């Protein structure tokens, strides 16, 4: 295990290094002059020169890259052009809300997807299977921004069952202010026993989380089904049947655990994908997370901010992948032995 761990860590570091270089390269593709973007179109020549010096745009590219990496590692992620704040602070503020939203979505996806996958595998080739397969294909085919608009229009603006936008009712900040520990509103409200904010947050979470959950739920259902069918055709399933267990027991009590392995390794991919899908959904529901920040940055062509978001999500993805690989050791003893 230690050697496997070291190799895996080395790989991750290499990928992160590549991710930084690639992000840097994309940001230098900007056709316009970043100095102009920062100083504004009416800037004087002196102001422009000053901006160029500040951003180090006069240096050769390798030097710029080196400076970029040095700044990143030193915690300087640049300054956002539209909030005029350090990008790192902006990200630090926005990320917990995204984590809250995507976390809720993934929980919904697992809670819905795994049982649906089990039902499909149990009744393979029959009606429940066909309906699960078709609906999971629908779920992965739906454009999230459109689904977000549709659910918002029908269930929030129309029927009024759920709040239209935001993370929680802002007026609650006066009546029952929230103490921050994790910066994740729902978690902080829960551990401080702030019920008004907790219930308000949960109500605000439902629609955006459902929209983001559609894709991962579909993927999880399909994957669970396929893995269960494969697992239940193996030798050990035959032995389990010969020990007197019925089909349902073989699937849920024996095949499910090894089958969850591929599903788990998918979660990292789906997590990153969902954060990015969240970009579109957060903008619709005005959720104060990375996505809304990214959407605002895109609108104002705020390259440092976009670079920051891109880098953060890519690194998150690498870390999530690593975590999943290590987690698999817990689920599958064979991996642990490696």
């Amino acid at each position, binding site marked *: 295990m230690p050697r496997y761990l070291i190799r895996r860590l080395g790989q991750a570091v290499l990928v992160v290094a590549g991710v930084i270089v690639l992000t840097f390269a*994309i940001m230098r593709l900007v056709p316009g002059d970043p100095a102009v973007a920062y100083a504004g179109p009416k800037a004087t020549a002196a102001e422009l020169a000053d901006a160029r010096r500040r951003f180090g745009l006069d240096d050769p590219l390798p030097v710029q890259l080196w400076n970029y990496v040095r700044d990143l590692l030193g915690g300087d992620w640049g300054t956002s052009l539209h909030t005029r704040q350090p990008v790192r602070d902006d990200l630090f503020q926005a990320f917990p809300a995204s984590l809250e939203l995507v976390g809720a979505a993934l929980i919904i996806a697992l809670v819905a997807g795994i049982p649906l996958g089990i039902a499909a595998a149990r009744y393979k080739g029959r009606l429940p299977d066909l309906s699960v*397969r078709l609906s999971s294909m629908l779920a992965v085919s739906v454009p999230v921004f459109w689904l977000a608009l549709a659910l918002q*229009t029908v269930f929030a*603006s129309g029927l009024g069952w759920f709040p239209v936008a935001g993370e929680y009712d802002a007026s609650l900040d006066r009546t029952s202010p929230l103490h921050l520990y994790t910066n994740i509103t729902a978690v902080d409200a829960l551990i401080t026993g702030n019920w008004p904010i907790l219930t308000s947050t949960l109500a605000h979470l439902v629609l955006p989380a459902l929209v983001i959950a559609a894709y991962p739920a579909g993927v999880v259902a399909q994957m669970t089904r396929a893995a269960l069918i494969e697992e239940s055709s193996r030798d050990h399933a035959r032995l389990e049947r010969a020990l007197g267990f019925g089909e349902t027991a073989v699937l849920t009590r024996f095949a499910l655990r090894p089958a969850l392995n591929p599903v788990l390794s998918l979660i990292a991919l789906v997590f990153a994908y969902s954060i990015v899908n969240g970009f579109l959904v957060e903008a619709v529901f005005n959720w104060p997370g990375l996505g809304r920040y990214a959407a605002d940055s*895109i609108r104002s062509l705020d390259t440092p901010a976009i670079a920051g978001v891109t880098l953060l999500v890519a690194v998150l993805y690498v870390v999530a992948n690593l975590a999943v690989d290590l987690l698999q050791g817990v689920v599958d003893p064979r991996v642990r032995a490696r």
Partner: protein
Amino acid sequence: MTAPALTTFRRTPLRHLAGVDRLAVAGGVLLGIVVLAALLAPWIAPYPDDGGSATHPLEALLPPSGAHWFGTDQVGRDVLSRVLFGARTSLLIAVAVLAISGVAGVGLGVVAGYAGGWARDVIMRVTDIFLAFPALLLSLALAVVLQPSVTTVIVAIAVTWWPWYARLTASVAASVATRGFVDSARCLGVPAPLIVLRHVLPNSLTPVLVQLSLDGGGVILTAAALSYLGLGAHEPTSEWGLMVQQGQSLFTTDWWVVTFPGLAILVTAFSFNVLGEGLRARLSR
């Protein structure tokens, strides 16, 4: 081994397999309808000029009726006509992205898989880096720094898409390269490029083709998202994502402006997914 298939061979799979074929056929038919709509848009659209920049201010935001099945938009254009023309944009993007990233990915993948050694290591590490970005994220970053246009969308998505095909092809090509007929070609002194072109490539293509059809839906969704964010097609091009963006503030009052383009994206992505699923199930038998 004695009769290994017994416990796995049940009565249901026969029906199941027939169902899979039906699935592939259903996906194909659905996609065929979308393709036909795209090809015939200028002739079947009730108001062909509305696919472009025509405006009819007096007919703005009419609800669906006999004259306008899908209603009209903010400037009075027929939504059905724009949805039909939108199929052209979406399918053009999908075909271009899949072609570019398919050719680039398969090319690099075959080299990596056949050559092995450091070439494989370098190519695979580079794909690792690209794959660390969720596709929509990298395309977003690229589309932001380039000028918003359909071409930008194609380039931005293709850049993020090729590594999948490179990986897939590399693993298939590596296994093809160890087969007997490749060995014998090598022994006969056939030059490596010719071996790759004649033997390795054709035998590595099938899984990639299935993957391409599965990915059509993903490309359509990503492209629509980019246009929705204002990074892709712009007025007066008919593009579904753009139509949703332009109509989103009207959803509560004039639902048809947003509903039909969104459904068009859904149906197209769904048809790719159903077709791909059906093909995959068929080929993995």
